[in-house]
């Protein structure tokens, strides 16, 4: 007989109730209570866990967190970009043409460009660390539990979802705190639809190129689209292949603490170092492969990237993506984006043989319309996040079946949403 049937409720709830009953019994016999003081922690919880204000306050803090990360990191990103630009320029002077191209275009131009996002990613993780160390993040999970439950998710799914805005890899690893297998699997499957920071450079580039003053709204709409699709997918999975109710959320809220700079920096480093490892492995290999495919056959590829291996692959797959308005250039960059989404930007730069965000944006505007740009942003949001995420999914789910399911699902969904955007946009007269 199952424990739930014997106890009449979830065993975890029964255990928690009994534990607190015992604590109260002991306290009643040993402690003389005075008038209860309204502690600072009570004061904060009164508002942070407020029925109506709790969620708006959380959204306010989340917005402040993103504002901090994006705006404060901007000059530092520029600094790193200029540094690698100088290195790339210097390495062009090397007499051996292949080596010069490898260093300037492949390493300093390619990998260096991706490394410019280090300040952004570290700033975001620093802000998350402050919220976590203060004890607020646990409250955020608590206030979101009711909402998450309605979506067929567990309260603890919230933290991985939030971390997903930084990077899906640690976010998927954070699902280990979810005890129920079904709850965990649903969270793992929908997490890649949460827009990670790697997608942001691509959004910034495309939105900046096509939407001008509306760029931030276009970027925000991608975050929104990802969240909506993740919710719908969670509901669908809960009603079909992973049928059942989410398990109850039991959590002891930690005390509020003033976060220390030292502690937050350590937490930021622990998470941010994952990106550095990715940069030193997947992104480095990706940059080298990308350089090889777009620079060879040597001599021919230098005349036109269209004649390179990259161009040939793009041309071969172009018919599949033509209904979305994507040509061989975009298709090639999407293939390389499987290594890591940031590489999409880098590959567009190589394909167009231009350097810098402004030059790539200028080239995109000539060849594509805002509608195709928007469909491209949606496709980038939804298709396979990156090689590292697929590997993490395999490791965390312990199943190739679910890993393949996720890959196929994301590709189909990306294609359908891209097609819907171009289809509906076309019908409404947008170009």
């Amino acid at each position, binding site marked *: 007989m199952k424990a739930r049937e014997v106890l009449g409720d979830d065993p975890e709830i029964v255990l928690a109730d009994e534990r607190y009953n015992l604590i109260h019994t002991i306290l009643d016999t040993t402690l003389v209570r005075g008038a209860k003081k*309204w502690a600072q922690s009570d*004061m904060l919880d*009164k508002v942070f866990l407020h029925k109506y204000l709790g969620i*708006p306050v959380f959204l306010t803090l989340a917005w*402040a967190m993103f*504002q901090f990360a994006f705006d404060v990191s901007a000059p530092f990103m*520029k600094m790193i970009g*200029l540094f690698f630009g100088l290195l790339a320029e210097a390495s062009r002077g090397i007499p051996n043409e292949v080596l010069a191209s490898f260093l300037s275009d492949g390493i300093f131009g390619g990998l260096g460009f991706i490394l410019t996002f280090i300040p952004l990613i570290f700033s975001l993780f620093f802000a998350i660390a402050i919220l976590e160390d203060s004890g607020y993040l646990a409250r955020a999970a608590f206030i979101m539990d009711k909402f998450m439950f309605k979506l067929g998710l567990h309260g603890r799914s919230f933290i991985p979802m939030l971390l997903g805005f930084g990077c899906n890899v640690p976010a998927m690893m954070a699902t280990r705190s979810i005890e129920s297998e079904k709850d965990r699997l649903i969270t793992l499957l929908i997490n890649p639809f949460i827009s990670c920071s790697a997608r942001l450079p691509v959004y910034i580039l495309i939105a900046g190129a096509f939407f001008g003053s*509306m760029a931030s*709204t276009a970027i925000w709409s991608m975050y929104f689209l990802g969240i909506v699709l993740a919710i719908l997918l969670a509901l669908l999975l809960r009603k079909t292949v992973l049928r059942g109710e989410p398990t109850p959320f039991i959590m002891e809220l930690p005390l509020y603490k003033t976060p220390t700079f030292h502690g937050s920096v350590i937490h930021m480093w622990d998470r941010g170092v994952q990106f550095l490892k990715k940069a030193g492995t997947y992104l480095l290999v990706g940059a080298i492969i990308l350089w090889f495919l777009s620079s060879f056959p040597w001599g021919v590829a230098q005349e036109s990237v269209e004649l390179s291996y990259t161009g040939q692959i793009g041309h071969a797959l172009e018919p599949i993506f033509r209904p979305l308005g994507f040509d061989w250039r975009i298709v090639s960059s999407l293939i390389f984006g499987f290594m890591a989404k940031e590489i999409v930007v880098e590959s567009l730069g190589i394909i167009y043989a231009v350097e810098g965000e402004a030059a790539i944006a200028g080239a995109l505007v000539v060849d594509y319309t805002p509608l195709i740009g928007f469909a491209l942003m949606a496709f980038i949001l939804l298709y396979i996040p990156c090689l590292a995420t697929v590997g993490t999914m395999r490791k965390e789910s312990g199943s190739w079946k679910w890993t393949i399911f996720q890959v196929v699902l994301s590709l189909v969904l990306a294609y359908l949403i891209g097609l819907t955007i171009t289809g509906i946009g076309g019908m409404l007269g947008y170009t």
Partner: protein
Amino acid sequence: MGFNKNVGTVIGVYSFFIGMTYTLIGLLEIVIGWGDFIGSGASLIPPIELAGINLIPPDVLGGIMLTIIGAVYLTGVRQQARGDREGLSFLLVGSLLAAVFFGVFTAIMLANGLGYVFQFEDWLKWTWLDDLKPEIWLFPLALPGAYLALTKKEWRE
């Protein structure tokens, strides 16, 4: 109960004033920025400037956040006026949110200042007045509230 009604009324009036200020400025940011937000570019009222300083910028999302801070202050007014100690919570959290936004926007100003010092391309025309947002200049109003909520421990007995 925490403090007498006379003190509560003063705190309530203060919270109402600061809550309304945040809310109204937030709403103005939304109205001014709405045209840009929906893409029409047309604004119901022009940005509000004083001596060349863009005091209330067009910023829909930023405006919504200011309105939420205002709502936190306003929610506690009735309890504070009754002398209920729980009303202080709204004063404390309102001030905390105001402080967080002040910190974030000051950090943004400093970062942009760095961009200007290094004369990076996008910062050549930057001046510190560009970043003097309501989140910064409204914060001094929140300081007395934060001081009261944090130091008057006897009100929490």
